[in-house]
């Protein structure tokens, strides 16, 4: 259908007939206009998602460690911004989004071959494929960076760089392909087990959170944990970081609509609502549990809500989003307060408690609340989630979560074993006492006497 704007009509005198060439030109102008709008939003979204890693996550995690480890912790996130970018250009994008089999992409886009400024209609028909590629790159960056929270304050920089680089190739890329890639096993449009994951609940948060748990158990506790006090050294930095994460998450979730569409609006609102409700959920749980509402509790809750709404953001109505947030805040605080201390693992900055637990919860609640009224992914009026009457979706969600857990556990264990043999994962006890800033980087985060 062609819509005549007044400007277009003005070019055609009323007496002369409209030519085919003019109609084609008009059609092209309409396509260009949509592409311009969508591309603008997607480039902004890509920048917002990068903002989540640096400085968002770097500040959030950096403030939670002791002051002798702040640079080491921030460098772990920053290193991902560099390393994963290079890996993505060489093979990551191809392994995630190339045509391969049900489990991993092929090699046709190695070195970004064929990734041009024209759209790839498999993924996003209105934006240049390079925009899609760079947007997905930002997800690939933050995912391994999230894991660093579990092994904070005790891993060698070299081992971290090698482990997480390999992890992004052998765990992230296959998982991204299975969920989002053409022909992927869990792809919601055309996969064998159509599993709903709008913005990466399983791909990003379950994989990183579960791998975080595996890593912190494999590596062992920090020396002195839990007898010694290891309180956060700067709640202010963490606070700023969490607020930047919240803002960046609009790019993460609303950007996953892959265009400046009404669906992006829906994801934007759901994201915000869930973060707000989860901040409340965690705060109430903590107030009851410990007697005081803390700043760290409020911001941790907001992040937990953002994690949980990620898979659901483009599938649910605003009120279920509030509910998902509220449940996630309470559930993740329980994981952090009770489960971690009972099971005695040292997930230093709660990467599993927030991302693994929140991501798993979010994936299951997505199956419950997804509705065709927001996103008719299975066709107009075809029930989507359990709330529409399609209870089978919960089984698909379970399968998605199960596969994400499995590939994360196996992949992470194998990679840790190899890297430990070749490089050694942990710093020496002396270096751990001295802190990562000095022992790994020869710098100090704070030199207030200089």
């Amino acid at each position, binding site marked *: 259908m062609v819509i005549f704007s007044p400007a277009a009509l003005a070019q055609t005198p009323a007496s002369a007939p409209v030519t085919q060439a003019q109609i084609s030109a008009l059609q092209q102008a309409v396509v260009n206009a949509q592409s311009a709008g969508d591309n603008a939003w997607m480039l902004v979204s890509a920048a917002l998602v990068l903002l989540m890693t640096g400085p968002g996550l770097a500040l959030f995690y950096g403030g939670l460690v002791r002051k002798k480890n702040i640079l080491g912790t921030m460098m772990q996130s920053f290193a991902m911004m560099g390393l994963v970018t290079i890996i993505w250009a060489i093979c990551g994008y191809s392994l995630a989004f190339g045509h391969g089999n049900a489990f991993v992409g092929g090699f046709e886009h190695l070195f970004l071959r064929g990734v041009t400024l024209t759209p790839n209609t498999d993924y996003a028909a209105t934006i240049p494929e390079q925009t899609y590629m760079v947007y997905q790159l930002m997800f690939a960056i933050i995912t391994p960076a999230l894991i660093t929270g579990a092994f904070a304050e005790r891993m060698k920089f070299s081992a971290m760089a090698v482990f997480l680089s390999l992890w992004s190739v052998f765990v992230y890329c296959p998982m991204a392909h299975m969920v989002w890639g053409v022909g992927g096993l869990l792809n919601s449009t055309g996969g064998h087990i159509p599993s709903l994951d709008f913005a990466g609940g399983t791909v990003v948060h379950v994989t990183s959170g579960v791998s975080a748990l595996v890593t912190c158990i494999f590596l062992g506790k920090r020396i002195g944990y*839990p007898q010694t*006090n290891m*309180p*956060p050294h700067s709640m202010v930095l963490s606070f700023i970081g969490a607020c930047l994460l919240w803002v960046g998450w609009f790019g993460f979730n609303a950007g996953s609509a892959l265009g400046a569409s009404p669906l992006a609006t829906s994801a934007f609102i759901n994201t915000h609502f869930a973060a707000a409700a989860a901040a409340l959920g965690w705060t109430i749980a*903590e107030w009851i*549990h*410990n007697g*005081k509402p*803390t700043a*760290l*509790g409020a911001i*941790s809750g907001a992040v937990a809500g953002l994690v949980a709404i990620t898979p659901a953001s483009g599938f649910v109505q605003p009120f279920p989003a509030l509910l998902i947030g509220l449940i996630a805040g309470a559930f993740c*605080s329980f994981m*952090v*307060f*009770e489960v971690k*201390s009972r099971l005695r693992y040292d997930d230093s900055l*709660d990467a599993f408690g927030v991302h693994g637990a929140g991501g798993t919860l979010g994936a299951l609640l997505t199956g419950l609340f997804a509705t065709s009224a927001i996103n008719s992914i299975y066709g107009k009026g075809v029930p989507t989630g359990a709330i529409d009457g399609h209870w089978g979706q919960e089984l698909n969600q379970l399968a998605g979560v199960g596969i994400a857990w499995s590939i994360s556990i196996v992949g992470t264990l194998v990679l840790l074993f190899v890297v430990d043999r070749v490089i050694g994962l942990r710093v020496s006890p002396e270096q751990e006492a001295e802190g990562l800033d000095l022992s790994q980087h020869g710098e100090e985060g704070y030199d207030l006497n200089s």
Partner: protein
Amino acid sequence: MLKIEAVLQPSKLDAVKDALLEAGIEGMTILEARGHGRQKGHTEFYRGREYTVDLLPKVKIELVLLDDLKEKAIQAIIGAARTGRIGDGKIFVSRIDEAIRIRNDERGETAL
């Protein structure tokens, strides 16, 4: 000559300093310190974990003065630093054998 050392709440430093100047005591040394008395610090909660912080920030004032200024100085400190609550701090008084001005090797009370 006497040395008066007073450990105070950091928030009371300005009031104590002003009170001492008003009492005619001109020289003083201020140290930022950490410590605890009988109240034994406080507890903090981070993600449900309880941390005991037993060394709290304090300031310490050191004065060396003539014997007859002792009561005046003590009253000035107490007047400015007392809230009546636990943690107000303590004052210690001790004898000083000698004082030397580095600039000109002046000795004794005139060096103060």
